[in-house]
């Protein structure tokens, strides 16, 4: 059975005086125990809202969340706030792009880690603090015994992100959700953090949902990748299949438009015309249609369904990029 099974998840924002806006539109995916699943797409496609909805962290007012978020046997969307909070620290950890806003600026790091252990594992303060030192050490923070007494602002961005990972992993959660955890970091620090995440996931068997706009990060890390556009999953495939043979015109276009470090200085990059924001509110039918080279009559008007593919993935497109036939 899947560890996490997200079904038909939708989030509609309603503001007075504004049209309701569907930021997440029927998103579904599963995460098996120990698996790393990617959610990728450009900004505004609904990645963060999806993860916040899964965790029950969206603001109480102004939005409507529908669908199911099954974690093992429980639908998280149906839990009472208090039970959900309990599950969050114990079974599901989360890390965000900006560690500073997720850490408490006036509480020493050690105490922040220890509190999680006290709350969810019933440890005494002393035992929790001792274990906190071990956790900071495990995530590669130098001289951890001293760092316990320090405050978040005394650490660099990379070290803060390590501290946040230590907190998220304190209770050995079975699922970790990481929303752009390295986007604010320099590339050499990003490499450190990704290596750390990979190591921790391998060692502990924690499942990981990796949210990123960076196709390179996905290529090195994820077992399965979900490509999002306009709040919908438009393509899902194993990482090798997705990169070898992208079928959705959006995925295909994205992969062609990234400049690659391992390709010689080149002429023009492939362009996708227009932009996401030009097309809000999303058109009926395929939201990518105004930017798509392969658009046909069937793409506009009626909703294009997400259909399973032969390679154990899924595709939402009436006129997909032809499959590459192995020579």
């Amino acid at each position, binding site marked *: 059975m899947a560890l996490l099974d997200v079904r038909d998840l939708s989030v509609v924002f309603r503001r007075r005086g504004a049209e309701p806006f569907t930021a997440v539109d029927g998103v579904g995916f599963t995460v098996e125990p120990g698996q790393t699943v990617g959610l990728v797409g450009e900004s505004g496609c609904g990645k963060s809202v999806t993860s916040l909805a899964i965790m029950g962290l969206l603001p109480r007012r102004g939005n409507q969340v529908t669908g199911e978020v099954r974690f093992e046997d429980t639908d998280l969307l149906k839990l009472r706030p208090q039970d959900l909070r309990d599950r969050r620290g114990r079974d599901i950890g989360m890390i965000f792009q900006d560690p500073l806003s997720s850490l408490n600026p006036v509480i020493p790091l050690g105490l922040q880690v220890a509190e999680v252990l006290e709350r969810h594992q019933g440890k005494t303060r002393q035992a929790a603090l001792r274990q906190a030192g071990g956790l900071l050490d495990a995530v590669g923070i*130098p001289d951890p015994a001293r760092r316990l007494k320090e405050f978040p602002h005394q650490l660099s961005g990379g070290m803060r992100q390590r501290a946040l990972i230590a907190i998220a992993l304190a209770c050995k959660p079975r699922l970790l959700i990481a929303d752009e955890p390295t986007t604010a970091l320099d590339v*050499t620090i990003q490499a450190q953090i990704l290596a750390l995440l990979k190591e921790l996931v391998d060692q502990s068997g924690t499942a990981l949902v990796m949210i990123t706009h960076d196709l390179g990060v996905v*290529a090195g890390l994820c077992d399965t990748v979900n490509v999002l556009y306009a709040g919908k999953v438009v393509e899902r495939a194993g990482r090798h299949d997705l990169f070898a043979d992208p079928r959705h015109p959006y995925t295909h276009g994205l992969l062609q438009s990234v*400049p690659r*470090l391992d390709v010689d*200085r080149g002429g023009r990059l492939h362009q996708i015309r227009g932009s996401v924001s030009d097309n809000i509110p999303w058109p009926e039918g395929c939201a990518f249609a105004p930017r798509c080279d392969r658009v046909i009559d069937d793409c506009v008007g009626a909703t294009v369904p997400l259909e399973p593919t032969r390679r154990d993935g899924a595709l939402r497109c009436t006129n997909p990029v032809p499959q590459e036939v192995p020579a």
Partner: protein
Amino acid sequence: MSDVLVEIDDLKVHFPIKSGLLFDRTIAHVLAVDGVSLKIARGETYGLVGESGCGKSTLGRGLLRLVEPTHGRIIVDGTDVRALQGEQMRLFRRRIQMVFQDPMSSLDPRQSVESLLVEGLKAHDMHRDKAAVRQRLRSTLDSVGLPASTLNKYPHEFSGGQRQRIGIARALILGPELIVADEPVSALDVSIQAQVVNLLGDLQESLGLTYLVIAHDLAVVRHISDTIGVMYLGALVEEADGDRLYQRPLHPYTRALLSAVPIPDPWTEDRRERILLAGDLPSPVNPPSGCRFRTRCPWSQPRCAEDRPELRVFDDSGQRVACHFAEQIHSGELRMHEVHTELVRPAQGSAPDVGSGLIQTRNDLP
């Protein structure tokens, strides 16, 4: 390099840190740029890469004297830029223009695109002939792929990609020879990034522009640059043409940097060897003695703490590297060793990354 447009020699930009209590007392300096020498050939693209806080933006601004350099020479097309004064400098500035990460974020939202573009012309007294101005505005917008109707609109009405086109139009309208582009595509999504990268390429071809492109994204820089300079903590550590730099990175920092960039190809990612650097960029207030990279260098030797390596020509290819042991590392004679992580305090003197906000930029001149 036959036709050199820009020559920078031993450029330094040091920012004083004032004491909080006694405002006039300087207690230390941020050595943001500390002895950079480079040449940019006419019509080429020079790409400057390095982690945030290493001094890329300060170098770009120092070149335009938007921040006043502390030391060094800047020669542009035979003119000693630092010797220019007042009116001369103002006139000279027309020939070098800058493109920023988000050109609109600093602008008055009530100013229309037209008034924004005309502003530059006014400063150079090029706005009097109304018909000529009209023509110039249209042709400039056309060259960046925007319709003439853009003129009557306001910044907030545009998406990120379109705003960057307007920023480029603003730089182009005065007909510059050199464009310094500071992270021109960093704020843009991949699909939009490709549009702007292509536009910069097209403009270079049609107008014969020379570019200094500053970016932290190595893949972007490799795609557009003829020559790449790698900066670390205020200094150039390596310089080569892009293909050579990728195939034969000589400096340990370049090797680590290249190995850290994710490549959107699972097979490549599975096979790659990574050089993971320990710790963070040290503070530019008290950079390490000798080689500035030594606190994170997996090949460092005792000598590295004593002598600061000069940027020197490595071989006939013209590749330049600032490492005492480049030959031995390249041949494999010197092996990697463990590096102990040193903690770097963000609050020490100045945060490594202040963003562009903190850099004092002179807005009185276009």
